């Protein structure tokens, strides 16, 4: 394929964020063209299926119920596609020839991560539509985080568990020809490269984020998991109290072939984190929405996530994720213990910014929600 260089200037930025002139200049390099219908926002822009089940997880033991999870996923996929049969619903997205990456989130493991019972059920459905076990990859950037979960104990033999960055810091697992080049704080290494399996191996990706607060981006959901979870050298986006997550997350998520191949969003909200994310070391900041969201539009799901986290924070008496008061920003360890302290000036606007890049629908009035209570 001919090498193509896309100069993706932040065209939406001046319109949406005209008061902030610190939007970096991004240079996106990819040899992959956008699919005719990219996976994000996919066939269901602005449509979210929310499934709640009180028995999906037991709050004290934090143990998920595999049977309830199975029904939640079946209901969600059926409602999303309009199919009456779960297998037919999954067949809308996947065929036996696909090589499927299941992008889990393990950054908060073992306290919070893509629930193994959910991941196992996703794998079971992929097998049911004819995808071979050897063509299913449960993947994350870091091996130690993956190992702390032990997904292999929950899925059939042959399903691959893959860490992209092994050892940490190595860029061998990333595609040298697909990257976003940007200087955020004058750093020497200005490239963030796309995970090599995404570029070279996967034909489809399922994104399985958690419902979490995030000290830099406000919340971390579909967009952050698919963006920061698939690129190298992303921690450079925070420095002192400033973070560039506002524009960096959407820019990364929109890079081809990641955008085209990410075809299904399954948000795991059995358990959530309302403060101290993404690592969430303290149990007192975890809560149990007992909810999953399904869609193809990551922006629409994340827009709902924003309110879920912020409402919970308000209920707990914590400052909003939108709070930008300088007096509440304190560097150091205070953030992880005090919900009224921010580590950075948070950037929950990253979701609206991503909408401006065409990744989905942000306007609540235009988002259609199908609620299912089991």
């Amino acid at each position, binding site marked *: 394929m001919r090498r193509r260089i896309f100069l993706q200037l932040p065209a939406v930025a001046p319109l949406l964020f005209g008061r902030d002139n610190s939007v970096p200049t991004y240079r996106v390099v990819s040899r992959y063209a956008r699919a005719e219908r990219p996976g994000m926002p996919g066939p269901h822009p602005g449509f979210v299926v929310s499934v709640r089940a009180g028995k999906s997880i037991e709050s004290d033991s934090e143990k998920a119920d595999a049977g309830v999870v199975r029904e939640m996923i079946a209901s969600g996929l059926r409602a999303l596609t309009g199919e009456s049969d779960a297998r037919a619903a999954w067949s809308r997205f996947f065929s036996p020839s696909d090589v499927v990456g299941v992008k889990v989130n393990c950054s908060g493991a073992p306290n919070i991560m893509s629930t193994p019972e959910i991941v196992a059920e996703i794998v079971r459905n992929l097998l049911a539509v004819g995808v071979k076990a050897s063509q299913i990859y449960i993947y994350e950037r870091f091996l130690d985080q993956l190992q702390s979960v032990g997904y292999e104990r929950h899925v059939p033999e042959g399903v691959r568990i893959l860490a992209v960055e092994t050892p940490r810091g190595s*860029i061998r697992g990333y595609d*040298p020809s697909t990257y976003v080049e940007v200087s955020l704080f004058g750093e*020497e*290494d*200005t490239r963030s490269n796309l995970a090599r399996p995404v570029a070279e191996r996967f034909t489809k990706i399922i994104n399985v984020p958690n419902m979490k607060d995030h000290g830099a981006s406000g919340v971390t959901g579909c967009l952050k998991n698919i963006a920061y979870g698939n690129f190298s050298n992303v921690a450079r986006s925070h420095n002192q109290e400033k973070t560039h997550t506002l524009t960096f997350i959407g820019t990364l998520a929109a890079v081809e072939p990641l955008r085209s191949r990410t075809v299904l969003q399954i948000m795991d909200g059995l358990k959530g984190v309302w403060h101290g994310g993404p690592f969430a070391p303290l149990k007192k900041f975890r809560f149990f929405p007992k909810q999953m969201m399904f869609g193809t539009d990551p922006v629409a799901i994340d827009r709902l996530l924003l309110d879920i986290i912020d409402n919970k924070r308000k209920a707990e008496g914590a400052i909003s994720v939108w709070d930008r008061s300088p007096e509440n920003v304190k560097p150091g360890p205070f953030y992880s213990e005090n919900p009224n302290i921010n580590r950075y000036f948070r950037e929950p606007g990253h979701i609206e910014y991503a909408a401006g890049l065409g990744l989905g629908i942000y306007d609540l009035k235009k988002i259609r929600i199908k609620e299912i209570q089991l």
Partner: protein
Amino acid sequence: MSALVLLAVLLPGLFWNKDPETASALKQAGIERLYVPAEKAAAWRAAGFNAVALGAATLSGLEKVDAPRVEWKMDVASATRAPWIDANGWRFTRQPGRRWYEEPPNGAGALAAAEAFAYDADAILRIAPGDLPAFGRMLEFLKRADQAPMPALANIGLIDDGSDLVAEVMNLLARKNLLYRIVPAPEPSLDLNVRIGSREFPRQAAEDPGAFASLVRQRLTDDKRLLRIYGSDVVIGRLTGQGPRARLHLLNYAGREVQGLRVRLRGRYKGTLRAAGIERAALEDSLLTREATEFSIPAMMAYAIVDLEALP
């Protein structure tokens, strides 16, 4: 004969002040030539070594430098996440005629030897006994890689007034792989000339050498840089060349293996990799554009060389 002399001049020398009873350790490390205290020279020669006497006065007259290393300084707040590197390349190139002396601690001997070799420095190293095997292996690698020195390739001219201020700027430019050479006056053929105290590069700005190096980078622009290194902030490169041939020296100061380095060179080349301590090393994911060459180094320990041939 002249080739042998040249080789001996370019390779770093070992200073060994122990008695010939330790000869077997040296032989096992493949070392045949060494510097010894004058009073021990005869005994070492009798033991079959090419021993060069180094008198106390000569030894104390050598320019002593610290061993190369990286300092992570995790507890120090900084505008950058990059670790601090103690590197000597800028010193070696600032005073090319000097003879240098180092005492690298155990584990740093191979890097010290490679650093001296990469910058064509005449260096004598006192190696810790436990480091002899690694040092010997590095010397063997350097012998195989040895060739006549080529001039440094650079597109930044730096006017050196001999001050400590310029010294620290040199250190930081080298650290950030901004390839410069010392010029007596601005050279129009270079992409950028830096004279501290000029309107473009005020003396006050140089008082923060890190920020000053960033200013130089900004003025040059990344597109015009001769060398970019991605994937590691502990590797420093030196580019030399003459006519169609060039050589990229890569020094890893971390003290442990670096995996997956990505290199971008301005200009079109085809290259061959040699990496010390790594069998069958080969460049990966090579990419040639109209104006640049890129490739990946799968893994490197202390030192790697990429020999380059210019393409039309």
